[in-house]
């Protein structure tokens, strides 16, 4: 099993969700994050002082999937989150040693769906 973690643009979440749903991946969790990466921050002026904003607002997506779905999840995220401009983000795939669905107490791959 895998835990797919992706950092994406907030405005791409809907598109990513559509792509995931198209692949029958419905389970996920989303968090607000502030990120820095290759996309440079921007400067604002607040009360006359130039201000460097280098932590940008991003979303963090976590999707626990079975091994065979990991590829598909990555594909879906790629499809929905890619604009081609700096700041699109990254996807990490982590190994998940065990999974338990709390309500049903299903474990392993069965817990992922």
């Amino acid at each position, binding site marked *: 099993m895998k835990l797919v973690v992706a950092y994406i643009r907030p405005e791409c979440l809907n598109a990513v969700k559509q792509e995931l749903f198209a692949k029958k991946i419905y389970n996920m969790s989303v968090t607000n994050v502030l990120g820095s990466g290759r996309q440079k921050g921007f400067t*604002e002026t607040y009360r006359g002082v130039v201000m460097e904003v280098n932590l940008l607002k991003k979303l963090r997506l976590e999707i626990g999937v079975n091994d065979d779905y990991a590829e598909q999840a990555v594909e879906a995220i790629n499809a929905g989150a890619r604009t081609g401009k700096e700041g699109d983000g990254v996807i990490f795939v982590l190994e998940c040693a065990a999974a338990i669905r709390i309500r049903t107490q299903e474990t392993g791959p069965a817990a992922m769906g």
Partner: protein
Amino acid sequence: MFESTKQTTALLRPKVWALTLLLATLTPAVAFAEGEALSQEHGNLLWTLIAAILVMFMQPGFALVEMGFSRAKNAGNILMKNLLDFSAGVPVFFLVGFGIMFGQDVAGLFGSSGFALSGVDPTTAGGQWDLTFLFFQSVFAATAATIISGGIAERTKFSAYIIVSVAVTALIYPISGHWAWGSLWGGDELGAGWLEAMGFIDFAGSTVVHSVGGWMALAGAIVVGPRLGKYSADGKAKAIPGHNIPLAGLGVFILWFGWFGFNAGSTTTVDGTIGYIAVNTAMAACTGALGAMIFAWIKHGKPDTSMSLNGALAGLVAITAGCYEVSPVGALIIGLLAGILVIISIEFIDQVLKIDDPVGASSVHGVCGVFGTIAVGFFAAPGYGDNAGLFYGGGTEIIVTQIIGAAAVSAWALGAGLALFTIIKLTIGVRVSQEEELKGLDITEHGMESYNGFQIFTNE
């Protein structure tokens, strides 16, 4: 320790005192003899001033309602629009609008004198009244202007909005305002607008102020187009919930508070009618809120907060035309109907016409303004004001006049609004880019966030 003669001195103002030292007794006009009476003129001036201050306070009311009902990423931009329309509107109205609205009448259509109150002598009682009257009218003009920002919130360029604001307070509002209220300042001497000559009744401005703002907002919403994500590909309306209902609620109460100045202050006179005007204003606001609350409850299964808040405003807008003419019971009914009407209208404009008016400005101010204006023809009660409506044995004449007036002003405001927004669209552009809209106008138009440090979930 202190003799009572001291009080007269104490009444002198700083400058007077300084002067007294230099000029001895050269300013008798400002020191009042003990036991002298307050003149009716000064009483009226005081009341008009206080009422104007209350109306001025409606500005943050509008700002809060509009901020609260839109998203966090655009809150500062909405605030700036409200600050701008007041800040530009009051000077522009002083320099241009006032003369167009209240100056020497030209064919019943517009005024043509009194710009910047030139010729007014502030040392005379008349001149001092003129300045007070100007203040009262300028906050009304700013009210009409500020209504617009709600309808076009979250996607309109700030520079475009500046042009709209100036045009409204300089020309669009004063012209139709002249039709209905043109002789309020100069009386017979300067001549009346065509609607007042017909006997059109709009005591405090359901049509003159609110409808004008409301229809301009609708025009703007049409030309600017809906917010991204407001309508799905298949044309279904989607909800874009407001981010701060407590602020919006505070805004509604502030508006309600200021509205007592708006309506009761429109007498510009201290007499016995101001009390019942306030009663009518309160009653209609109450039943407006109740009507919307109950109607939403029945229709959607829940007493919706934002609709109930809109309902109170709908009642207030609707009673504005007739607050001097109807009885408290009439006000109760007018408010109730407005509260129901505003929901029907919001849903119709949003879901059927597919025009995206984020705060419901066109329904609250446009539709309910027209409704309230026409309602005078039905509900004007003998004993209150000077007319009898259909329900009290009056004929249909007033109703016809009211419909003509409301229709004429509405057509003017909608037409002028469509023209103005279209011209802006074709020249400097009326809408921010898609990317700016997604990031939010606070960052992209003003370079700052409204809620720095707060974690806000944005997703579209």
